């Protein structure tokens, strides 16, 4: 299965997220933290040049609350 890198987006599971903040450290261009440490993920598909960082951000979450999902 070959999907274009542009066809992915990040999705936070807001119930699972415990504000560890590791995702934002891995992917600062796409994820910022609110004042309480919870991630704010940029809307829209992730560009091909950033997909590697997005994957690292998802992998870094200690509670698996960040997922890289196909758009749509």
């Amino acid at each position, binding site marked *: 299965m070959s999907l274009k890198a542009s066809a992915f987006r990040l*999705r*936070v*599971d*807001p*119930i699972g*997220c415990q*504000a560890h903040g590791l995702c934002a450290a891995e992917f600062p261009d796409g994820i910022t933290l*609110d*004042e*309480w*440490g*919870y991630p*704010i993920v940029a809307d829209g598909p992730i560009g091909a040049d950033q997909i590697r960082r997005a994957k690292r951000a998802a992998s870094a979450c200690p509670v698996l609350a960040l997922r890289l*999902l196909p758009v749509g």
Partner: protein
Amino acid sequence: MTATLASSDSVGMPLLVNRTQLAELATRHRILGRGGAGFPLARKISALPKRGTVVIANCCEGDPTSRKDATYIGNSPELFYSGVGLAAHALRARRTILAVHAGTTIETTLRSTAPAWMEILAVPALYVASEATALVNYLNTGLARPAGSITLPTTAGVDGAPTLISNVETFVHLAQAARGELDTPGRRQMLSTVTTSNRRQVIAHRADSTVERVLRAAAGDEGEWILAGGITGRWFHRAEIGSLPVGTLPGLPSYVILDRDSCPIGQTARMLADISRVSAGQCGPCIFGLPAISTDMRDLVRGDSRAYARLRRRLPVIAGRGACAHPTGAVGLAASALEIYDRGHRCSARCDTAGVASRLARRLR
């Protein structure tokens, strides 16, 4: 304009349609979800498979500003059950569930009038427990709080089965449509709840009636600020909302006329404290965001002008980031209070008092 609907003498008449015909009815009559979100019923039906579904009628009516569903069930239960039965048959439902807040008068009515083959599910009488994914979560896990799943209930709901969840009024409309008794959207009968400082009334009216007409029918106070759309609705000046047709407005058709002595910003501060108190406490925006903006709003009422900037910064950060719409609703309410501030309204000591809207919010559990 009183809260009575024509009762049908055709109880038990077999009105049988298949799934395609059900979707057609919903499309042709433009039947929308009536729990506040206004999602087209036809789209929910189209997402369901031909059999093995679960049908849930959401009879919780957890919003303390609304009594329309209780009125439908109290005044025309046969019409409501007929709509539920119609959907359950068309979708070949394996379970048909009437979900209701435990210990309410609606539960008593359902237990004494519902057809035996419909299951009555008494859920904890908590505001957030009546949200659609919370009902599914309660049935599946026993936890009465929103699940925030990526998967929609129409794909995988109760026991993993595709599940249709709709509001009482939606099923009433479906029954009326099947009998050829449902008017076009503008002429359609609907029920709105109007609350004033001393009474709450349910008004039957046409969807194209203006808000002002409905408010007058309730013969309520002449207050100028109206809370529209539910406890997490928005404030409107009466002159601004009065000329709009009720049927075109988002959210629940409920209107709280604020007494002249109360201040909408002061009310909002108190309401936010209660809205925050009843959150499921699962996500950051509710755990930290709602208490923060509730405190900010109270500070604004008490004359701290810097609280305005904090609210302007925090509101857009909190909206849309919870597992359910609870924080987003709270932000909408808060934002409408800030619009009143923007018009030049400044609070004095007497704004920090209870009023009709904050008393309703106090009842949230």
